[in-house]
Structures are given as C-alpha cells and as structure tokens.
C-alpha cells in the first residue's frame, strides 16, 4: 500500500513569512495527525483529526498555526507568520480509527523540514 505522502520535503523561509505543508494519509485511515519534531526532541502533537473533525488541537499555537482537513482525506498545515523557533520537522501520520489496539499504531510520512532564518 502507498505510504503517507508529505510535501514539500524541505522549506527555508525568513521569519514572519508564511509556509504551508501538505499531507495525504494512507487510504482508509480515518485519523490524521500533525506532529512537530524539534532537533533532539521527540515528536509533539500539534493537531489530530478524525475524518474532517478536530479531535485534539490543545497544543496548536493558534495565533500562528492553522490546519484543515476539509474532505476528510488530505490535510494542510499552515504557519503564518513564522518564528525562528518554528524550525523543526513537521511529521504527518495516519491511523485506523477504532477501539482495537492496532488503531494506536501510527504510520508516519517522511516529514517536512522547515528552517526559519
């Protein structure tokens, strides 16, 4: 099966500019996640979608970050305006939905590496 697709792989911008990342999950995966991974840290959840609804966005800096999954399939994460501390890898992941343990197994995309100068 095709994996989780993300683009772009790399992006360099100056602070106060805007950037958008795109993610297409595995077909049939109802749940989609955006994680931020700063160098030397583990991934930190930004937002979780179930189909096109938001399940958890408690750690999303809503003054500058936004995300949408309008048709319940692919998703876009936007940062505007970017700050230096936003330099990180943005990982998209997807999983099945349900109560079985397998629903907790996330499949990750290759990530989008953002450098803010």
């Amino acid at each position, binding site marked *: 099966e095709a*994996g989780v697709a993300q683009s772009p792989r790399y992006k360099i911008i100056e602070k106060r500019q805007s950037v958008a990342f795109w993610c297409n999950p595995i077909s049939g995966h109802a749940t989609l996640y955006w994680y931020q991974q700063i160098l030397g840290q583990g*991934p*930190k959840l930004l937002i979780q979608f179930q189909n096109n609804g938001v399940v958890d966005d408690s750690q999303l800096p809503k003054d500058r970050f936004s995300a949408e999954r309008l048709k319940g399939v692919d998703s876009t994460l936007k940062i505007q305006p970017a700050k230096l501390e936003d330099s990180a890898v943005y*990982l998209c992941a997807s999983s099945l939905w*349900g109560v079985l343990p397998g629903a*907790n*197994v*996330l499949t990750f995309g290759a990530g989008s590496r953002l450098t803010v100068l």
Partner: protein
Amino acid sequence: EDKVVQSPLSLVVHEGDTVTLNCSYEVTNFRSLLWYKQEKKAPTFLFMLTSSGIEKKSGRLSSILDKKELFSILNITATQTGDSAVYLCALANQAGTALIFGKGTTLSVSS
C-alpha cells in the same frame, strides 16, 4: 500529566555489542506502549506492547513491558551499523488518542 522518559539519551557501541534502551512512563490510563525506529526519515514502527502482550521479539530486537514498575526495555543483540538510529518510545493512554513520545535514544553503532 502523562509522560514518557527515555534513557540514555545517546549511546555509542561497537558492532556486535548488545544494547538495552530504557523507557519509563507515567500514565493515568494505560492502553499500549510502542517503539519506533527513526533514521533520516519517518519513524517506522517496531513493536506494540499491551496488557495482553508484554513481550515481543523480531530477529535481533526484543522488548518487554513491566506494567507494575511502569517501564519498558528494548534490546538489540549483535548490533550492526544499520541499527544506528533514534529509537522512540511512545505511550497510548486510551483508544483514539494521539501517541505521547519520549525524547528518544540516539544509538550509534561503529564498525
């Protein structure tokens, strides 16, 4: 607050050595604990441990879960240079919620 603590943060070994990576956690409602391997790209899934499956093994890798003492270990025997990566431990605290990750252990295997 649920959390995951991994140790050591980094480790350098020689090819052929055996290594043990540690993961301790605090959780209000345990569902499962997962191990991922992250090389240059995406984290890839290794194991999931649950209350009904506290030991897993795949080739040279194995993992156990101690629900009483709230920790897990990942063992790698006869290490190879291809084992060099960041190993992430993650916690699932209930169905349908996102994983909580530790900071990871960076393993470097020299030839």
